[in-house]
């Protein structure tokens, strides 16, 4: 039987605010444990939360960038449960009136555009961090993360393969980066996804029983978890077994999942309106201001790059999939006479270098301006494109200006006809066989002679002059 996989995501993004959601403690990552806490985020008796305005604005910004409706009047609620990372024994979240509802993102998979619905986006506070010790029978708690603002983005169950999940997740990440709502540093846990997955016989109307995998913190882990869980559920069904509705833990190192001890009762969070906080009213004027703060989004930028800089669609899509990369390209392209060449350098040598060195895009050691200069040197025939690769390597390692490098190492194109002629003559007298071949019609042998001239000039001879002189001399 053929099966259909159905996936919905719940994505948690830590907002890139300076302070926590309900207090003035910093959200900076990596500090000593329990040094960024106060009575509010520790849930000490009598402490009153006050909402950070930026949190509302960032949630609205995300909603607008993902085609959501913005709720005019929204509220915050208590979600009650006991867990040691939650000092108040409740999390302030949003239940029935989230800030954003009913949005979508269009994704491209295998050349086809697909729409993935977004049910809702709400604001909530993060919990503290638990460190479980394997050897000792105890758990350590750091409350620095308690109260860090989050948005939770809940999609419709609209994805049907790991490719679709990957495309959606990457697109969402790009939008969060473009709008600067989250730094999306997955290695620091700024962006994490829960996967809800079920399978059903192809064409079946009703959904199968779903499982949930929580807190996946890399794109690779998400893709692998989706593939693995689809396969596991299909195998269960094929054996005539039922799927248990449960939460499973994904162990990416082992590439397997296992069920978490499930509670006998379903969760009862006993949501109720948070009495210490008031309603949030987002009026048209405020909405308008937030809308105006949204920068050009990746899809629009892609279309503009194709039009304005004549980039191929693939290159434009790739470059705009990362805000820092798009900025880097545009900083160079807008001062260059040859934006297409800039894009070629980025798609080729720059990306290779980043990949080889495991370097982030923000760590490109060659400034956009210098890359433009390098392209100029080629276009004005001061260096050959072969030599340009050498110059690029030196630029990468030394951060020197390209023209200085050319000067220092004497890499200019050799375009002095007399010098080239002398070398051409040398090559001709050293290779009588090739010359005979050319004269008898084997035109391809001329390439061999060009290569010889290039070798003698360390690749610096102007190839047009070399070709011309060689053709004349072998006629």
């Amino acid at each position, binding site marked *: 039987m053929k099966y259909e996989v159905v996936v919905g995501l719940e994505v948690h993004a830590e907002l890139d605010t300076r302070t926590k959601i309900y207090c003035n403690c910093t959200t900076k990552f990596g500090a000593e444990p329990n040094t960024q806490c106060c009575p509010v985020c520790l849930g000490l008796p009598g402490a009153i939360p*006050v909402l950070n305005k930026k949190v509302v604005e960032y949630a609205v910004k995300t909603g607008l960038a993902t085609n959501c409706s913005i709720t005019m009047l929204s509220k915050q609620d208590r979600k009650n449960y006991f867990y040691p990372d939650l000092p108040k024994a409740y999390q302030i979240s949003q239940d029935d009136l989230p800030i954003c509802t009913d949005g979508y993102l269009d994704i491209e998979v295998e050349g086809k555009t697909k729409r993935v619905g977004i049910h809702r986006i709400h604001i909530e506070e993060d919990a503290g961090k638990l460190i479980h010790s394997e050897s000792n029978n105890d*758990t350590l708690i750091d409350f620095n993360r308690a109260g860090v603002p989050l948005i939770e983005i809940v999609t419709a169950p609209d994805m049907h393969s790991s490719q679709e999940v990957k495309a959606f997740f990457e697109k969402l990440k790009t939008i969060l980066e473009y709008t600067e709502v989250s730094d999306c540093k997955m290695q620091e846990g700024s962006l994490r996804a829960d996967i809800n997955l079920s399978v059903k016989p192809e064409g079946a109307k009703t959904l199968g029983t779903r499982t949930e995998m929580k807190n996946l913190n890399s794109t690779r882990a998400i893709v692998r978890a989706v593939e693995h869980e689809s396969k596991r559920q299909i195998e269960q069904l094929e054996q005539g077994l039922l799927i248990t509705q449960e939460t499973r833990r994904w162990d990416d190192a082992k590439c397997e999942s296992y069920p978490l001890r499930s509670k006998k009762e379903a969760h009862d969070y006993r949501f109720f309106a948070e009495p210490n906080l008031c309603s949030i009213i987002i009026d048209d004027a405020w909405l308008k201001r937030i809308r105006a703060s949204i920068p050009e989004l990746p899809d629009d930028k892609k279309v503009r790059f194709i039009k304005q800089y004549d980039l191929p669609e693939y290159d434009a899509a790739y470059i705009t999939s990362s805000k820092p990369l798009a900025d880097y390209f545009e900083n160079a392209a807008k001062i260059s006479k040859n934006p297409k060449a800039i894009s070629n350098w980025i798609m080729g040598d720059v990306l290779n270098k980043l990949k080889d060195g495991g370097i982030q895009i923000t760590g490109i050691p060659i400034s956009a301006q210098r890359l433009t200069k390098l392209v100029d040197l080629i276009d004005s025939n001061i260096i050959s494109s072969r030599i340009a690769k050498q110059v690029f390597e030196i630029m990468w390692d030394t951060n020197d200006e390209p023209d200085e490098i050319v000067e220092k190492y004497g890499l200019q194109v050799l375009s002095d006809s007399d010098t080239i002629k002398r070398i051409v003559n040398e090559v001709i007298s050293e290779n009588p066989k090739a010359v005979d071949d050319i004269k008898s019609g084997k035109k391809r042998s001329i390439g061999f002679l060009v290569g010889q001239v290039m070798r003698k000039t360390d690749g610096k001879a102007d190839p047009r002059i070399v070709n011309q002189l060689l053709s004349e001399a072998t006629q």
Partner: protein
Amino acid sequence: MKITEKDIMDIADVSKLALTDEEVKSMTEDLQTIFHCFKKKLSNLDTDGVKPMEQVSSNQNIFRDDKCEHSLEQQEVLKNASVNEKGYFKVPRVMEGN
């Protein structure tokens, strides 16, 4: 609405309370009485024309600016920890999914 012993046991469970059989029994009766009083009062109220209340506070849009201020010192934070270690609160090992 009838309060059952199961309701009391469920509430005790999510509240992490251990109740004896007698306690379950007496609480079931107590809560039933309280609910009954409530219901009588509520059903006598005239709620025509009263708008639903989203939030207890009648205020709207009270916000903070996103400006950092000093947090507590670590020793101060850990004062309420019954056990601490290396700057962390220390509790008996918790299993995931609890």
